């Protein structure tokens, strides 16, 4: 991978708009930055003089911390903004809010927002680079990139690998970004979950549906377990947590019955005893904490590559 290679886009709005080369480029740099953050001195000066605003219009802990850490490891100047203590609550529009922040000479915006398309909307109205840190039920591209990076660390190339995404597909931004990302890397993707939480037109994405969890786990090289998004549901899409766990929760018992046990991922935060038991989450099959560490490296790669488009960066 030549060091001069650049992304084909000036924003990271979603995985859908990326080329496979873009994804490989991010994964290549993520590996470099993972090495950096495991050094005794974890910081590099790559984004010195770059100011990044983290705008979180929706609650998030791990994504916000992960971005902030990635930015600081790259020596960027960082400001944080959360909707709960902002002028948004006073009726200010998104564009006005962001333009006010950009007036303070900010170079990049990392944004989490509850509305699908919010990042794309913003990218049409402001000059700064935009990184989508999750827009409603649409995309969460850095999560998909860190999932892909974590899988490749364990499995090598994802070409021809079978990956099943389990759980609430309808209300998940992780699912859509994962599907696009994994397919662009050559993997075969399936989904598994209650029919009430599988979008009707999921086949249009070239994804197969495996109704039974046991069959899905048998089929898969990797199982990506999604969190049940209670907060995005306007009513109960299944009768009870207990019944959900019975049908779609991964247990050691279900894993031991398989010919080969798939790698288990979870984007977090985990509902222990719902999607996955503690025993599985803490087992050698799960790489949940690897994902968290890789999240910082992948986000460093994304920020670095976007910033590199505008300036000469060391």
């Amino acid at each position, binding site marked *: 991978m030549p060091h001069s290679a650049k992304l084909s886009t000036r924003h990271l709005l979603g995985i*859908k708009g990326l080329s496979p080369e873009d994804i490989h480029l991010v994964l290549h740099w993520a590996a470099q930055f993972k090495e950096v953050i495991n050094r005794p001195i974890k910081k590099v000066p790559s984004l010195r003089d770059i100011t990044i605003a983290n705008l979180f219009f929706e609650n998030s802990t791990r994504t916000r911390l992960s971005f902030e850490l990635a930015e600081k490891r790259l020596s960027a100047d960082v400001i944080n903004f959360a909707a709960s203590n902002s002028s948004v609550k006073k009726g200010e*529009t*998104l*564009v006005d809010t962001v333009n006010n922040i950009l007036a303070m000479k900010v170079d990049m915006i990392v944004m989490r*927002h*509850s*509305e*699908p*398309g*919010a990042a*794309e*909307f913003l990218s049409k109205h402001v000059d700064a680079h935009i990184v989508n840190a999750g*827009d*409603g*039920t*649409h*995309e969460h591209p850095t999560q998909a990139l860190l999932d892909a990076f974590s899988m490749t660390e364990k499995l090598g190339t994802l070409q021809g690998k079978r990956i099943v995404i389990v759980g609430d597909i309808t209300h998940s*931004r992780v699912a*859509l970004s994962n599907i696009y990302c994994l397919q662009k890397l050559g993997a075969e993707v399936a989904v598994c979950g209650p029919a009430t939480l599988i*979008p*009707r*037109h*999921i086949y*249009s*994405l070239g994804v197969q549906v495996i109704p039974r969890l046991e069959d899905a786990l048998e089929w898969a090289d990797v199982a990506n377990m999604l969190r049940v998004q209670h907060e995005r549901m*306007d009513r109960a899409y299944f009768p009870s947590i207990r019944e959900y766990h019975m049908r779609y929760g991964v247990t050691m018992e279900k894993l031991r019955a398989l010919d080969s046990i798939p790698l288990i991922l979870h984007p977090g935060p985990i509902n222990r005893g719902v999607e996955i038991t503690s025993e599985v989450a803490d087992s050698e099959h799960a790489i949940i904490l690897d994902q968290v560490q890789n999240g910082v490296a992948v986000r460093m790669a994304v920020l670095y590559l976007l910033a590199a488009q505008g300036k000469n960066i060391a």
Partner: protein
Amino acid sequence: MKILLPHVLVMDPKSPHHGQTVDILLEDDAISAIGSNLDSSGAEVLESARGRLVSPGWIDGRARCGEPGHEERETYRSLAEAAAHGGFTHIAVMPSTSPVRDSRPHIESLQQSTSGYPVEFLGIGSVSKNLEGEQMSEMLDMLEGGAVAFSDDHASIRHPHLLQLALQYAADLPTHIQSFAFEKQLCPTGQAHEGPIALSQGLSPIPSLAESLRIQRDLMIHAYAGGHLHIAGLSTAEGVDAVRAAKAQGQQVSADVAIANLVGTEADIVGFDTTYKLLPPLRSTEDQEALWEGFMDGTIDLVVSDHHPMDTEAKDCEWGLAQFGAATIEQAFGWYRQVNPSHEALERWVDAVAHQARALYHLGDCEIKVGMPADLTLFALDGSAEGQYSKGVNVPTWTQNGRAVGTILGSQITGL
């Protein structure tokens, strides 16, 4: 006042002059002569009409005005100018204003405020007081005050008993009840047509079932209650099939389609352009084809603008926060022609907006014939509407292939 339209091509399937190029003489707000080389002495000759097509004045069966309540989106004046620019001499306006047009004084106020305009406003009153879906509005009083029909617009008629009562109550009156067939309970957070595009954009889906389920309910209530039911804004193949079956059974049912659903599809929402966030939503190409088939075979009686002008704040924002609707009254004909430039479609357009609409609203006949009112639209089969009179910022950018050139309503002449 005498006016001569020289050398115009009559496009009116009901007229004995259909397909002929003639001169038309207007006198005292009526057509006084039609023929070749008419004597123009004493008449004002409208040279800008020469070579254009002429039909009875077009009627927009369903449009919205911001006034009263949202004058920043559209005023009576701007809507009248936009409608005339689009070729319409009459527009039926929905009651979903603020306050709601739910009593006779509101209907009379509309008429007083718009008298003297080159476009006649037809007031549609609400079915229920304040669009709340509970108490019936005073429909008879509104009808005597000039209302032409009743609708709860997008608030829809949620309660089946209210629809039954409204149909029964209005059954012996020269009017009809409009129902916007949309079962919101099926998709309370719906943002776009349920299909591959909504899925790929993470938008909460509006299934076709939300329309067909409500149409089936409405048709069953109508079969029981009688009266005249008008299904407003068909958007799905299933909806067209249901109306076709009801008509075959002899039910007194009519239906319309919004121009946007004949022209656009779900593909238009790629990139989250909120101009194309509509209700009913833009649906699949299969739905679009079924709508055209239903329109051409008469299952769908009317095409309407479904004009819904918005201001910047209502549209230039995140998709989920943007209002539904597009400003469509000025370009409707050009878009229609671009999608289907056939002669049959042209005749069907005139049949729908000139004749079916007049029948629906009990406005009396209007044909290109001596003795008929001077109520005419002149138009061209090429070019596109230039400029914009609507205050709406939400005008789709579909390609146009045709435009209205001018209108004549009594002594009021626009565009010529």
